[in-house]
């Protein structure tokens, strides 16, 4: 079985959970002898090699008829293709315009690497860029042979549809997040419409949670029988060595927020709950790891509330830094307003950090050994934070049980479900 897969990001070139999910998913599929050709927008100059994914420098941008094909895995059954493009999965239309400016001036601070940027005549707005990506995809689909198309989130919709037209193969649209999740009430109509168009046009839909499935049915009017739920798994069952109790057991306790500091992630509720905790437990530090459009506002908010000295804003973290911050933390809180899945709580669990989760999240469907909150119920959140900071038997039980549960949440089972959808689509 050979799959043409359209994605947006792949570790380490990523800013969120989608890349992590794609990595875990494709590895498990490849292990099951599924051939995966992974296509994603990329900034070729910024690519580098790592242990798992091999990238080969693509042709210079001027020659970009389309793309490069590179092996993404030693096994060669999976190849990666970069369509030269500055698309980024968590992008808003205005964000894209800003990025355009950044690229033109050669400043790529938000990409964080030492990459070299060269001026590339990208499409003038986000949508024309999506369209350019789609045209490249179409020509790729004409050259390659495959059995089915599998694409991730709205930016791949146009590409997948073109690929379907050219190849005549069926298309599965995998939904990791929706516009109302990312933007709340201030949704971008263009993106919403693109999503609805894709959801209506797709031959089948995979949703990352029942939560997301319900929203696809309610907000987009899609018939329920067209949607299969496949929960994300956790990469690798290797549990990191637990931090010795003494390492964390000092007087000072750390509470972690990890994620983009944006509306969707509910950072302001985290801060309000923290303020309640600090009234009773002064020896607590709140770590806010991540960046995003609300970061400045949040820094100002803690300053105004007079609790700034109990907060650390770390900025965007990657790789080992993420691991380090989990190891430093006594508690992880995900107060998201709407979280289609949310992979970080599973990561926290791997590091033996107990978790408080928003009820408005898909991951709560598979992680039961955690505490649930409504993101707006700040006092409930604060009470649960304090319980986890003060009551040892609670922490021990949660940690032990959540780890057991994590062992059952591998990608293997998820891959099997995806393969079943492939089989249904091919036959």
């Amino acid at each position, binding site marked *: 079985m050979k799959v043409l897969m359209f994605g947006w990001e792949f570790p380490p070139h990523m800013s969120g959970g989608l890349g992590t999910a794609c990595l875990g998913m494709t590895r498990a599929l490849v292990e099951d002898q599924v051939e995966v050709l992974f296509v994603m927008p990329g900034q070729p100059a910024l690519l580098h090699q790592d242990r798992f994914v091999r990238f080969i420098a693509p042709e210079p941008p001027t020659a970009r008829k389309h793309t490069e094909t590179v092996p993404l895995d030693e096994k060669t059954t999976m190849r990666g293709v970069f369509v030269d493009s500055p698309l980024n999965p968590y992008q808003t239309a205005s964000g894209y315009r800003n990025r355009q400016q950044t690229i033109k001036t050669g400043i790529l601070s938000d990409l964080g690497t030492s990459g070299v940027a060269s001026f590339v005549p990208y499409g003038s707005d986000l949508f024309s860029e999506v369209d350019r990506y789609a045209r490249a995809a179409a020509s790729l689909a004409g050259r390659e042979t495959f059995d089915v198309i599998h694409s991730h989130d709205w930016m791949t919709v146009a590409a997948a549809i073109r690929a379907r037209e050219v190849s005549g193969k069926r298309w599965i649209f995998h939904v990791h997040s929706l516009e109302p999740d990312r933007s709340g009430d201030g949704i971008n109509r263009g993106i919403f419409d693109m999503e609805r168009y894709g959801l209506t046009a797709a031959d089948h839909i995979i949703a990352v949670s029942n939560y997301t499935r319900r929203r696809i049915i309610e907000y987009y009017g899609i018939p329920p029988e067209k949607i299969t739920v496949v929960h994300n798994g956790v990469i690798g069952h290797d549990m990191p060595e637990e931090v010795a109790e003494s390492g964390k057991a000092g007087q000072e306790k750390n509470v972690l927020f990890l994620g983009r500091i944006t509306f969707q992630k509910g950072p302001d509720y985290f801060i309000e709950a923290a303020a*309640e905790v600090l009234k*009773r437990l002064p020896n607590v530090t709140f770590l806010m790891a991540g960046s995003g459009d609300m970061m400045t506002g949040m820094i100002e908010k803690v300053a105004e509330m007079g609790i700034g000295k109990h907060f650390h804003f770390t900025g965007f973290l990657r790789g080992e830094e993420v691991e380090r911050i989990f190891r430093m933390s006594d508690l992880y809180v995900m107060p998201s307003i709407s979280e289609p899945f949310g992979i970080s709580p599973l990561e926290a669990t791997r590091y033996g950090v107990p978790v408080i989760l928003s009820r408005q999240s898909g991951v709560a469907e598979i992680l*039961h*050994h955690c*505490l*649930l909150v409504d993101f707006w119920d700040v*006092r*409930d959140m*604060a*009470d*649960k934070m*304090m*319980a986890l900071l003060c*009551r*040892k*038997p*609670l922490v*021990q*039980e*949660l940690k032990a*049980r959540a780890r057991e*549960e994590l062992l059952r949440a591998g990608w293997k089972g998820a891959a099997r479900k995806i393969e079943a959808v492939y089989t249904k689509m091919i036959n």
Partner: protein
Amino acid sequence: MPSICLFFQVHQPRRLRRYTIFDIDRHHDYDHEQLNTQVLRKVSEKCYLPVNQLLLDLLRRYEGDFRISFSLTGTLIDQLEIREQEVLESFQRLNETGYVEWLNETYDHSLASLYSPGEFREQVYRHRAKIEALFGQKAVTFCNTEMIYDNDIAQAAGELGYQVMLTEGADQVLAGWNSHVVWRSVSRPDLTVLLRDYRLSDDISFRFSATDWFEYPLTAKKYARWLNQHGGSAEVINLFMDYETFGEHQWRETGIFDFLRELPEEILKCPDLGFRTPSQIIPDPSSAPMLDVKETISWADSERDLTAWTGNGMQRDALQSLYQMEERVKKSGDEDVLRTWRMLQTSDHFYYMCTKWFADGDVHTYFNPWESPYDAYISYMNILDDFDRNLPK
């Protein structure tokens, strides 16, 4: 001739409200009155009232050929007295037939037998007095909370004057024997012990409406045939279950009422079978095997041990914290404080903290008013903190 011994446990806890750290020192209102009123109303309508009526008809019709036994917890009786007097009266009408035996247990359906011998005795005395006042019977049969039993508890029950005790026919204590013989306690040979046949009991209480069960549907005729098959070899078949099985766990729509209505007739058709209550079952002292239980058993879960209440660190923490207060509670001499402390002892509060099967959505989840065992623990511990602050030092 094998005796069929039907026993029903009747209990409703006083569920606690969500109590956060912000409530401490602000109010001492622990009891989730609204929820408890609501549940009691529902269970009264679906189970207690209709099933009591059904049993009343049967007891009258068979004039002593059909007999049953009950234990009503003090926790339930207190609530019925305030909210559902009619239910209490319907139990009294059953009593008036003369074919009902009333058992004793811990008033507060607590785990005191494991944590405080003194408190255990006091609760049993209170329950004895209450049952006598309501039904005019001085109980001779004892059934500890959730059938919790071991040699020491048997000893304690014997000292309190009981002649019969009920517990679980747990595989780990049968040692090659079965539950169909009348046992005596190794620590108290004058104490008769009746062991529940959990397979036959659970056929009614758990499997009755399970459409994927190969015996589905279960009819009274079929069930009586199973009992009769044990024929000559059995002395007694003990069918112990929650009373709420009828109408609440198994809804009326499953046909459970018809099953119960037809059961006495089908059983009495078998000439070898007859109904007895626990105190009517007398062991043969020359042949009755001695029951030796060193590791405590109960009727909960497949383990039939204490892990449903004391299996994890949160449960043990909560229980220890609670029983450590005993001396100060009793020193306070305040009846309200004592009553609250006892309300907090009800075993259900600890059962709600059980994490064993939480993720599998099983029976623990079904009976649990909390979203998770962790939530149950957090609120409970906040309540204990508040309660502790108002005790004399």
